[in-house]
């Protein structure tokens, strides 16, 4: 049962954001490289929902894009159903694998071509992969529309005739058209209202069960992540600092940054718990701090943290990159302490 669908090993992606060569010569200043993703490894099993969380700019979307092939890795590998897709050449050699992964985007307005009819949008992967021929194409489009809660006659309409939530349904239908078994969802509900968000999240869960889909889910709404995922990974400045089962992570986070993140969640219950803002400024991914990149903001930082990058180590089912955890000098988490 626990078959790995996706394995990401030491994935890296650097972006060169230096000024043009001429400007560098005239005005000085060296090359500037953004380490958007800097050595990320994790695995996703079939039928799971693996979520990535973390501050804005920590590299979540870049990981997603590396996996579906919108970016090529600077280093490391993406292995999908046992086939390595890290290098562009190997990805090109396996179009059948590429076809089995799809992506759902954040902006329901920009993710559908405004000049195309909904039917043609959804039919594109079917036609391109020649999954159906002739009239069967539109029949399949009708089925897909019904699957996501729209009507087959909506195929004749243009995207602007739909609301944000309905467009996101259309995006899902398009993603499902190529019969994928792995979906990358980059903040699929961030642009939607809570009530519409609930519709989409429910739909995604139903589809997952029905079609045995595997999700990589990205969001910075931790409550949404808690609701949908089976495993959660916390990213900080291009690195995965902790990952484990959802319940474990929310119940007993180990990494100091995970703890800060959970402390900053707004409290709907109004239990009176003061929300603790994460202190300090987000460092720049151009010149990340040496050692553990979280050390300038970490209350448990010591000399070792400033020089040595902590490796991801396993503690039972939890995977954490932190010296304090390894040295056993981290205090208990609030909930765990109370229990």
């Amino acid at each position, binding site marked *: 049962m626990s078959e790995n669908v996706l394995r990401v090993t030491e994935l890296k992606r650097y972006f060169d954001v230096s000024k043009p060569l001429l400007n560098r010569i005239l005005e000085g200043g060296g090359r500037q490289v953004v380490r958007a993703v800097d050595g990320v490894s994790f695995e996703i099993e079939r039928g799971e929902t693996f979520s990535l969380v973390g501050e804005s700019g920590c590299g979540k979307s870049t990981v997603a894009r590396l996996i*579906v*092939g*919108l970016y090529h890795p600077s280093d490391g590998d993406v292995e999908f159903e046992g086939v390595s897709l890290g290098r562009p050449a190997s990805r090109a050699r396996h*179009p059948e694998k*590429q*076809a089995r*992964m*799809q*992506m759902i*985007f*954040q*902006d329901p307005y*920009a*993710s*559908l*071509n*405004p*000049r*195309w009819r909904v039917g043609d949008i959804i039919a*594109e*992967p079917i036609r*391109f*992969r020649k999954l159906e021929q002739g009239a069967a194409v539109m029949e399949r489009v009708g089925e897909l529309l019904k699957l996501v809660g729209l009507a087959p006659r909506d195929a004749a309409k243009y995207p602007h005739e739909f609301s944000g939530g309905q467009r996101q349904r259309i*995006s899902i239908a*398009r993603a499902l058209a*190529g019969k994928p078994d792995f979906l990358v969802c980059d903040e699929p509900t961030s642009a939607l209202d809570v009530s519409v968000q609930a519709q989409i999240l429910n739909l995604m869960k139903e589809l997952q069960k029905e079609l045995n889909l595997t999700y990589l889910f990205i969001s910075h709404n931790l409550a949404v992540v808690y609701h949908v995922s089976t495993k959660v990974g916390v990213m900080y400045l291009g690195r995965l600092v902790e990952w484990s089962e959802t319940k474990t992570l929310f119940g007993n986070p180990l990494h100091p940054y995970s703890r800060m993140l959970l402390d900053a969640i707004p409290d709907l219950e109004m239990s009176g718990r003061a929300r603790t803002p994460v202190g300090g400024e987000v460092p720049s991914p151009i010149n990340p701090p040496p050692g553990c990149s979280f050390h300038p903001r970490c209350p448990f930082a010591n000399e070792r943290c400033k020089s040595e990058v902590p490796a991801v180590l396993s503690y039972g089912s939890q995977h954490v990159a932190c010296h304090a955890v390894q040295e056993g000098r981290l205090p208990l988490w609030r909930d765990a302490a109370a229990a």
Partner: protein
Amino acid sequence: MTADRLRAFFDGDLWWSFTRSKVVMGAAIVTGLLFLAALIAPLLSLQDPWDPGSLQLMNSRNPPVWLEGGTWEFPLGTDNQGRDMYSAILYGLRVSLVVGFLAVIFAMVLGITLGLASGYLGGMTDTIIMRIADVQLTFPAILIALLIGGIVRGVMTPSEFESVAVYVLVVSIGLSQWVQFARTVRGQTLVERNKEYVQAARVVGLPARLIMIRHVLPNVMGPVLVIGTINLAVAILTEATLSFLGVGVPATRPSLGTLIQIGNGFLFSGEWWIVIFPGITMAILVLAVNLLGDWLRDALNPKLR
């Protein structure tokens, strides 16, 4: 489906903004009439101005009908070769419009192709195309026309050249205009390329060529049409200028510009009609097309609505 589209069009904002402005409607009607006149010129004209056999020198320099010595045979008078100005203008309109249209279409196709490739592929392709564009901009249309004309003239006999003169013009004017299309398309493509629907198509696995043609192209056509319309007016004027300078279409098949050039020589000897009537037609045509272009630009610009 087509009926649907038509209904959607007449229901849409474009048609609405069109019907709201009297000036724009006037310009559209004038443009339409001029196009029509050019199209059915043989039916409307009184003589075939391109047939040297039908021209008689004894009829040369006749004044328009309402002046002393004018006849209904030549309502707008005749030129120095006895050509009926009215017929010559209809045929000249034809030449001017054909040259204008072909030049703009040539520029459009070239500009869109290079602009799409430049914007979508980026990198070296982009750099090379844009540098060529920069160089291109330093050559005015007249220089290109002279250059190409000179080369073609060198390899062909004069009569052969006469038959291809129109194409030389089209290519010269087209070459002077493609940069504008290419830059606009490139800019729009850079915007569209990063939109998520293009990335979705990439994840589906569509090759770049198909993405450019099927997805990006339809979404960059709005501004292209606007530039196309405005450039039609420019192309017609450029053709006139080139013809006026004597590097345009041959005098045996005169365009409006050629007519103006011919007439210019007689302006001070009192035969003003030879230059004035083609001149007025030209001015009206260019003005009307320009007004349409301006309106299209405003109507398609969501910020001004």
